[in-house]
């Protein structure tokens, strides 16, 4: 039984210089066989394992991760959480996640620092205004909080935005989702890992999957850098590397993997207490609790697994940031990094069974899956345990690319998430 984190445990451990904290999760060697194995120890993979154990009583399971948990896109994203998506299927999916976020720290006994500081999306031209107003109406029909703000209301909500009408892309208004916000990315991975470990899930790091063993159309196990692991159910949650693993099983996915970048500035005093996104000029910014501006840039246009991204992409983003926030003109950027994001043709994810029995994929989250982490884990666990999708992820099956029933969020979500 794990010790509960609380103000009292904090005080108690302070007396021993914080040297006697219990391990948050074990570091086991893989067993020969599991009832199910999750590939990929990002937030989505760990959440899947947590809900498989918690809601479906599958505890003889493992998560295998080629590096360290949370070292992929989970630890590289700009942590924006919102659910104001246009289509019904997406609204259902992302709002399911948002509702879990609201109680997640309590549920996991781990502070994921979920902060409902609001997310504002700016409109810069007439088409933006129309699209965003339409999205606001669609959101409200789906019971998702959304309001339209005129330019002066935008200024009032976030005073540092340049709302002058003579800039290249003037602010013509915006939408606001107040329940939206940010969370601490690492804490999400660690909280789920700790919770899953407590229920008996083996979290195996430095264990790379190199092959998938099949017997006809059924999976038999995984070849890994720590040997063969026998299992009847495999859930792949490998983000940018999903296609690589699909190829091991002889499958092709409708994905392209591209570098997506983010950067942070030097820390400064609180200056922006919300998240502001602008799809048209491709800039989004928030401020971390440490005081750094957290800035999201765009994807490169080409497929790459290099986890860096091009300089010109960063340059364009910073130009846009400076026009919208002249106050940042002398701010220094401290760090820049990239992640590899897996993008579907309709910019929506895949949470699905496949043509191979026992092989499941959760991928295609692209530039915007952090916000969905708890919901994605919950629904993927349901899909694996029951060999059937939950009604909330039924539309996100892989077969939609054959039936043509796409969930096209490109227009609504654009590049920035």
């Amino acid at each position: 039984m794990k010790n509960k984190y609380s103000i009292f445990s904090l005080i108690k451990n302070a007396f021993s210089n914080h040297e006697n904290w219990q391990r948050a999760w074990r570091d086991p060697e893989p067993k020969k066989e599991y009832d199910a194995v999750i590939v990929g120890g990002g937030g989505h993979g760990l959440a899947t394992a947590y809900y498989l154990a918690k809601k479906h009583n599958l505890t003889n399971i493992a998560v295998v991760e080629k590096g360290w948990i949370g070292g992929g896109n989970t630890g590289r994203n700009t942590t924006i959480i919102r659910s104001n998506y246009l289509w019904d299927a997406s609204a259902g999916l992302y709002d399911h996640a948002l509702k879990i976020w609201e109680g997640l720290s309590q549920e996991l006994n781990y502070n994921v620092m979920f902060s409902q500081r609001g997310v504002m999306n700016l409109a810069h031209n007439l088409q933006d205004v129309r699209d965003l107003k339409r999205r606001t109406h669609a959101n409200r029909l789906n019971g998702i909080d959304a309001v339209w703000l005129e330019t002066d209301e935008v200024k009032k909500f976030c005073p540092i935005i340049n709302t002058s009408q003579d800039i290249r892309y003037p602010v013509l208004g915006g939408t606001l989702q107040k329940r939206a916000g940010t969370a601490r990315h690492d804490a999400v991975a660690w909280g789920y890992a700790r919770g899953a470990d407590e229920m008996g899930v083996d979290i195996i790091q430095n264990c790379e999957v190199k092959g998938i063993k099949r017997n006809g159309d059924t999976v038999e196990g995984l070849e890994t850098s720590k040997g063969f692991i026998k299992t009847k159910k495999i859930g792949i949650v490998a983000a940018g590397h999903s296609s690589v693993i699909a190829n091991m099983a002889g499958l092709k996915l409708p994905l392209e993997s591209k570098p997506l970048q983010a950067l942070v500035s030097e820390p400064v005093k609180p200056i922006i207490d919300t998240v502001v996104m602008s799809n048209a000029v491709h800039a989004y910014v928030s401020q971390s609790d440490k005081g750094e501006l957290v800035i999201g840039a765009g994807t490169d246009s080409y497929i790459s697994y290099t986890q860096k991204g091009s300089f010109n992409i960063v340059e364009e983003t910073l130009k846009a940031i400076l026009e919208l926030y002249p106050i940042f003109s002398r701010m220094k950027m401290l760090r820049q990094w990239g992640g590899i994001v897996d993008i579907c043709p309709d910019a929506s994810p895949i949470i699905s069974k496949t043509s191979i029995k026992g092989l499941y994929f959760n991928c295609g989250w692209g530039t915007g899956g952090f916000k969905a982490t708890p919901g994605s884990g919950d629904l993927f666990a349901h899909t694996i345990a029951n060999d059937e999708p939950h009604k909330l992820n039924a539309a996100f099956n892989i077969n939609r690319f054959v039936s043509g029933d796409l969930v096209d969020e490109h227009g609504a979500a654009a590049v920035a998430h």
Partner: protein
Amino acid sequence: MFLINCPYCGVRDQSEFVSGGEAHIARPKQPTELNDDQWAEYLFMRKNIKGIQFERWNHVHGCRKWFNVARDTSNDKIEKIYKMGEQPPKI
């Protein structure tokens, strides 16, 4: 971020080009004969290779011509550039 040697203009920065994705996906000769699976394969399914990939590029901010590139997507190193219509090189 890397340089691309356009077969028509010479070496330029990658930002002058746009990637057209996987190369050698032939447009179906008889679209009406395709079933849904074949359409999905043609339109959406991609190899998305980590390693050497054959892909199309267009010099949008230059000659605006298309050509093929063999590039290692794990380190962005270009192995070979060849013209449209040519067979992929053996690498």
